[in-house]
C-alpha cells in the first residue's frame, strides 16, 4: 500500500509579471521522506517552498498538506501547526535572548507548560545551543543563528519541514552539525523538503530528489532509483607499484568501461559495469597477477556528476 502523501500539489503555478517562476508543478512527497530540491539559481525552488509554506500566493493550482488543502487568506490553524518553514535569510529578533525567542514562538504555537519548557530544553540541546540560552541573539555567530532559526522552525514539532538553503554560508563544521540535526529530525518522523546547492549534503540526507529548471520539475524520484538509472559504478584502486602496470592488467578484463587517474594521486578511478561477484573476480585476478594493491573499493558516481550528466548547470 502506498504511503500517505505529506505534500501534494496540483498544477501549482506562480507567475511574476511575464516570467513564470513555477510552472504547473505536480509534486508528491510521501510521509517521512527527506526530499532534496536542486536546481540552478532562479529555477523556482524558493518560490515553490514559499508557496508550500503559505508565504506566497500561487497564481494557480492547489496545495495539500496531509490531504488538507492550504488556503493563504484563511487562518488555517491546523495546517500551520503541521508546517515548519526556514527561509534562506532567517531573520531574528536581536532584542531577545535565545530562550525568550524560542519561548515566544512556543507560545505562538500554543505550547502549554510544562511541555513548553521541556520542549525548549529539547530543541536547544538538539541544536547545541543549551549553553547560549541566556545570550542575546545579537551576540551569536552566523552558524548559531542558523541553528536557532532551525530550533524555532521545529519548536512545535511540525510534521512537514520546509528548509530553503539551510546550509548556505556555513563553515564545514556548522554544516556537519546541521546535517546531524536533520538526521535526528528524520528519525523523529518528520517529512523534510530541503533545497540546497551543496549536493554532497543532500546525497547524504535525502531519500528522494527533485530537480527544478526554469520553473519546471524536470525530475522527481527516489535517490535509489536515480543512482540505479544514472549512476555508473566505479572502483577506486591504488597500488604501490607502477600505475601503468595496473592499467595494462585492468584492460584485459571484461566489465571495464574506462579508467582515469585521479589527479594529484596515485589512484585510478575505474568505470565498472559488472556486479559484486564480478568485482570479486577482478580483485582476485589482480592479486594473482602480483599487483601490490593498497586500495580497492567500489563506489558510485556522486549526485553532482549525475546532475551535470543530466545537462544541468549546478552552481555549487
Amino acid at each position: 500500500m502506498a504511503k500517505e502523501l505529506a505534500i501534494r500539489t496540483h498544477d501549482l503555478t506562480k507567475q511574476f509579471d511575464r516570467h513564470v517562476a513555477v510552472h504547473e508543478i505536480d509534486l508528491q512527497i510521501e510521509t517521512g521522506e527527506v526530499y532534496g530540491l536542486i536546481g540552478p539559481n532562479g529555477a523556482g525552488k524558493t518560490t515553490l517552498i514559499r508557496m508550500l509554506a503559505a508565504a506566497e500566493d500561487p497564481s494557480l493550482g492547489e496545495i495539500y498538506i496531509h490531504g488538507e488543502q492550504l488556503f493563504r487568506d484563511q487562518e488555517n490553524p491546523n495546517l500551520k501547526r503541521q508546517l515548519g518553514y526556514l527561509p534562506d535569510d532567517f531573520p531574528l529578533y536581536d532584542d531577545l535572548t535565545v530562550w525568550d525567542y524560542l519561548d515566544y514562538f512556543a507560545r505562538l504555537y500554543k505550547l502549554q507548560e510544562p511541555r513548553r519548557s521541556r520542549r525548549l530544553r529539547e530543541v536547544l540541546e538538539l541544536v547545541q545551543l543549551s549553553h547560549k540560552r541566556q545570550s542575546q541573539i545579537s551576540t551569536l555567530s552566523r552558524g548559531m543563528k542558523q541553528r536557532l532559526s532551525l530550533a524555532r522552525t521545529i519548536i512545535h514539532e511540525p510534521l512537514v519541514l520546509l528548509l530553503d538553503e539551510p546550509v548556505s554560508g556555513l563553515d564545514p563544521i556548522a554544516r556537519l552539525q546541521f546535517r546531524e540535526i536533520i538526521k535526528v529530525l528524520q528519525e523523529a518522523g518528520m517529512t523534510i523538503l530541503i533545497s540546497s546547492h551543496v549536493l554532497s549534503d543532500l546525497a547524504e540526507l535525502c531519500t528522494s530528489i527533485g530537480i527544478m529548471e526554469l520553473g519546471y520539475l524536470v525530475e522527481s524520484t527516489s535517490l535509489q532509483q536515480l543512482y540505479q538509472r544514472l549512476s555508473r559504478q566505479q572502483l577506486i584502486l591504488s597500488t604501490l607499484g607502477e600505475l601503468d602496470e595496473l592499467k595494462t592488467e585492468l584492460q584485459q578484463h571484461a566489465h571495464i568501461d574506462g579508467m582515469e587517474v585521479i589527479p594529484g594521486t596515485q589512484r585510478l578511478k575505474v568505470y565498472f559495469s559488472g556486479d559484486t561477484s564480478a568485482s570479486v573476480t577482478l580483485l582476485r585476478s589482480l592479486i594473482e597477477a602480483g599487483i601490490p594493491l593498497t586500495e580497492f573499493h567500489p563506489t558510485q558516481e556522486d549526485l553532482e556528476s549525475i546532475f551535470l550528466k543530466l545537462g544541468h548547470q549546478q552552481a555549487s
Partner: protein
Amino acid sequence: MISNLLLRFSDWNPQFFREVKGRLKPRNVWLTAAASLFIQALIMLYLWVALPGQHSPYSRYCTGKQEEYSTWRTCVLDSAKFPQIDWQAWWFDVFQTLSWLLPFVVLVAGVYMLITDLGKEERRGTLNFIRLSPQTSRSVLLGKLVGVPLIPWVAVLLALPLHLLAAVHAGVSFAEVGSIYLITIAACAFFYTASVFYAFMGAAHGWLGAVSIWFSYSVAFQIWQASLYAEPRRYLFLGQWFHFEIGKTLVMFVTFTVVTLAIATGWNWLAINRRFRNPNQVLLSKRQSYWMTLSFELFIFGFVFRTYPEWGTRNAFTDLIGLLVVNLLWYLLLIAALTPHRQTLLDWARYRKAGVTKNHRQQWRRSLVRELLWSDKSPATLAIALNLAMPIALFTPWIATWNDGSSPTEGFFSLVFSTAFLLICAVMAQAILFGKSRRRTIVAAAVIGAIIALPPLGMLMVGAYPKAESSLLWLFSAFPFAGMEYASLTTIGFSLLAYLSVFTLLLARQTRQLKKAGESELKALMAHRSQT
C-alpha cells in the same frame, strides 16, 4: 499566585508578552520613570515660579479684582504681607497642562513606535513567521497595539497621580476627568489601528505618522480652545449633528466621540486583520469599502444639519465645500487602500478565465461586472465609481432643497465635477500601480499629489484667481467649486465632455493593457512570430 496569574496572562496573548519582554527591560523602565518624573517636576517648577511674589501687583493666581480683558487679578496681601493665592486656579493650570500633555505623549509616541516597529518587522520578514503561526490575526495585532506603545504608557501612568491630585484641587469633576481618559483611550484605539493601517500600506515612516498626529492633535486642541468661549462653557465641546445637540451635555459629547471613534476603529480593525493574514491583498475588500464610505458620508453629512447662531450667516454652499474637501481626502485614502498592484492584476487578468482559484468558495458563475464590483483582485475603478456615487445620491436631495440663496445648480455641478476629478485620479492611480516601476506606490502618490496641488497653486501664483475668464481652468482642478460661481453653462458642458473623454481614453487604455496581460504566453509568442 502572582506567578500563576502572570503565566495565564502570558498564555493569553504571546505577542503582548513578547513586547513586554522586549520593551519593559529594567533599564528602559528606569529611564522612562526618571523622564516622566523629571517632566512632572519641571511643570510644577514652572508654574511655581509663576506664582506671585511679595511685590507682584498682578498675577493670574491672585485673589483680587480681575483686570479688564485679562485673566490677571490684582494681588491682595495677607497679614504676613504675602499675596493671597488662588490655589484652585493654580491647580487648574497644572491639570490643564497635564490634560494636554498626557494624551499627546501616548498618541504621538505610540503612533511613531507602532509604525516603526511594524515597518521594521515587515521589512526584515519576521512578521512572516508570526503569520505562519496558528495564532489568529486578532490576537497578534492586539498584542502589538497594546504592547508596542508600552513605554509611553508607563510614562503617562506615572503622571496620573499628579493629574488626579490637580483635578481634585482644581475642583474638576470626576466625570470630566474620566471623560478625558475615556476619549484618550478611544483616540488611541483609532490612531493606533490607523498607524498599523498606514504601516501595512507599505509606509514605514514613523516620523511622518507622528508629525501628522502632532498636527491633528494641535488642530483638535485649538478647536477646543476656541470653543471654550462658546455657550454652554465646558471643558469639552462640540456642536450639532443631524440637529442632535451632541455638545449639550458631557455625556452626549463623550458618547458621540467614543462611538464615532469606535466605529472608525472597527473599520480599521477589519482592514488590518485582513492585510495581516495576506500582505499581498489590498487593504480593503470592495464590500467593506462600500459600507465604510456609506458610514463616513453619513457621519460628515450630519454636521450640515445644525442650528446656526444668531450672529452667523447660513451658507449651504460653504457647507458643501467643506464636505467636498473632506471627501477629497477620504477618496484619496480609499483609492490607495482599494487599488490592486501589478502582480494581483496580472494574476487576475491571466488566470481569471482558468476558473480555478485557491478559494473554493469562489468557484461559481463569474460575470465580469460582478467581479469588478466585489472581487478583491479585480481593478478598482468600478468599485471606486460606486463609492463616488454615494455622496451624489446622498447630497443631491439636500442640494435640491437649498433655500438660503445658494445656487443648487452650482452646488450640484460642484459635486459632479469633484466626483469626475476623483474618478480620473482613480483611473490614473490604477494605471500607475499597474506599471512596472518598482517605486510605483511613490510615483502614484507623487503624480496624484501633483495633479491635486500644483494646478491651483500655479493658477494662484500667476494670478488666475477664480473668475469668469479662468473658471474653465478651475473646473479641471481638485477644487472645481472655486470656479463654479463664474462658469457659464456652456463652459460646464464642455468641461464635462472633456472629463468624459479623458476618462474614456484612460479606461480604454486600462482595458487594453489588462487584455494584453491576460493573453497566454503561447498567444503572445505567436503574435511575436507573426510580426517577425
